């Protein structure tokens, strides 16, 4: 097991009370495998990524039952040891390519710094590695690019640079937080294809955070659906797409545009908004927006197994859930 997370929570003290941004989530990623965490804005998916890297904002408090990377418990590591791990064994790609590179250093300086931070290599070797990776992520004239500054590159190119930079030390795990959200659709598709082929070449695990089910269907081996700080459904991608069991997952899928949809027909949306996560929370977090809510939903719901690692957090039995899914997906107006 490359990454094993058990009962990870992130709490943020605020003036109104403690914000329970992430509430005891568990998941794992194997070598060469892709796990997609999917959910809407504010569900805690980005904080989950930052929590793994130990890069949370200073006020945020991280607790976890287990946070193991390649068998090493991350919570037991010193700040220096964690720093050594970051960039070398686990690297991260961010959502904002326009602001994620340092404006006053060249691409080459920033890339070689990563390698030279973690390995004893000469500047020339580091440069060669940078040129190789830039070429590999599809950037032409790599040698010229090394001498350029971020503002001379387009958003798509900058994100490619970020990916190449993350690969400098050949990490075992890449955490990508909405890596294509800020980019054109055509660039998105290219970058996703690139990530897949890189994963094949380097055999790394990929934790991909997204709100886009289209990306999930193309990239994921496993999926974890997050809602309001909890995982509400998780399992292999095929199982989730064929048998979405949680009403929220079903709702997300019903919101996907389909080719049969007529022009100007409204896209479906889940009514209501995400509950505030401040203070004492109880019951199913989705019940306020759920069409099948019952009085029992006010009590806490545990993840219940369905089949083949597929689990969901809902009181409805699977057969009723699936019948609902058929209705939800077909009555797509």
């Amino acid at each position, binding site marked *: 097991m490359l990454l094993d997370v058990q009962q990870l929570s992130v709490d943020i003290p605020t003036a109104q009370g403690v914000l329970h941004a992430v509430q005891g989530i568990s998941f794992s990623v194997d070598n060469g495998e892709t796990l997609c965490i999917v959910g809407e804005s504010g569900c805690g998916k980005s904080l989950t990524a930052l929590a793994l*890297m130990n*890069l949370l904002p200073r006020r945020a408090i991280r607790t976890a039952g287990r946070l193991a990377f390649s068998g090493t418990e991350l919570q037991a590591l010193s*700040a220096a040891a964690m*720093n*050594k*791990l*970051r*960039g*070398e064994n686990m*690297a*991260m790609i*961010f959502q*904002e390519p326009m*602001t*994620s*590179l*340092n*404006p*006053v*250093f*060249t691409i080459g300086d920033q890339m070689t*710094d*990563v390698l030279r*931070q*973690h390995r004893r290599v000469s500047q020339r070797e580091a440069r060669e590695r940078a040129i190789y990776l830039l070429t590999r992520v599809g950037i032409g004239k790599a040698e010229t690019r090394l001498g350029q*500054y971020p*503002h*001379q590159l387009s958003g798509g190119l900058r994100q490619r640079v*970020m990916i190449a*930079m*993350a690969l*400098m030390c050949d990490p075992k795990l890449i955490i990508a937080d909405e890596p294509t959200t800020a980019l054109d659709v055509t660039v998105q598709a290219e970058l996703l294809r690139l990530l897949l082929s890189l994963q094949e070449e380097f055999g790394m695990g990929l934790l991909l955070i997204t709100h886009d089910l289209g990306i999930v269907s193309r990239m994921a081996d496993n999926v974890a659906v997050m809602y309001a700080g909890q995982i509400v459904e998780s399992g292999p991608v095929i199982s989730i797409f064929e048998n979405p069991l949680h009403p929220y997952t079903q709702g997300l899928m019903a919101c996907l545009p389909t080719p049969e949809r007529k022009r100007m027909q409204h896209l479906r949306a889940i009514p209501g908004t995400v509950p505030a996560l401040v203070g004492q929370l109880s019951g199913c977090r989705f019940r306020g927006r759920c069409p099948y809510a019952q009085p029992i939903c006010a009590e806490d719901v545990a993840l219940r197994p369905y089949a083949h690692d597929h689990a969901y957090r809902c009181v409805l039995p699977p057969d009723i859930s699936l019948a609902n899914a058929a209705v939800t997906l077909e009555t797509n107006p």
Partner: protein
Amino acid sequence: MLRFILRRSGSALILMVVVSFVAFMLIFAAGDPAVKLAGEAGSSADAARIRALYGFDKPIPVQFFHWIAAAVRGNFGHSLYFDQPVASILFDRLGVTLLLGLTSFIFALVLAFPLGIAAARWQNTWIDRTALVIAVVGQAMPTFWFALLLVILFSVTFPILPTSGSETWQHFVMPSIVLGYFAAPAIMRLTRSGMITALETDYIRTARAMGIAPRNVLLKYALRNALIPVVSVSAAQLGYMLAGSVVVESVFAINGAGRLAWESILRSDLPTVQALVLCFSLVYVILTFLADILNAWLDPRMRLADARTD
């Protein structure tokens, strides 16, 4: 980069000409200079003679041209008070002030940078608050009073430093501390705010995610970005220290240009004032020019944006 420097030196040169014209016009600021020179007892015939002698009867552009042509060759005319060429008084005094300004500036930077960086790194801790107190005190305390306190401490209680004069390096220690301490707070606070802004950016998060050592994140990745606004302010502070060192020079009886300027104004020694204004202004122009170049070196966006407009 070379192109950038050339362009900036062009605009600096134009600025110098404008500034020197303003300095030249000073002589007419207090009314007809010939009447003034003739004195209260002077007749209008005296004034006319003086007018012809000094060339005040010629058109102003011609006078300016003569003055500037002489100034470029180091001839600033004759002092009305000392009865010797302005240039010979000026260069001694200017050297002393430049030296004092430079040592004060170094002291200011040595104080401001580490404190500003530490205050940002440990924001809202006792370190930050201590730095704030040091800054507020430096800004609020009158220079002459702080100077006297230092004299009491280091010349009277512990007689290790001389009280006045400018003969040895020991003479410069207290004046530099006084002048530097006054200039440091602005630089320190700006370094702090610049660092805080930089440390919250996405690119610093990237550097951390890549495992760059915290020391490098702070002193390389964040500092270079934070310094860009600091450079311009520092240049202005240095200019201020050079031109505004009157109080410190008076307290420590240093024969510098600041004191000379002050005394020359009292004596209505216009050629000397003119020459000093010109020198101080040119120092400002040069410092701004150097700050621009330093900024362009720090920030590639600046130098490339400039090149693109060609």
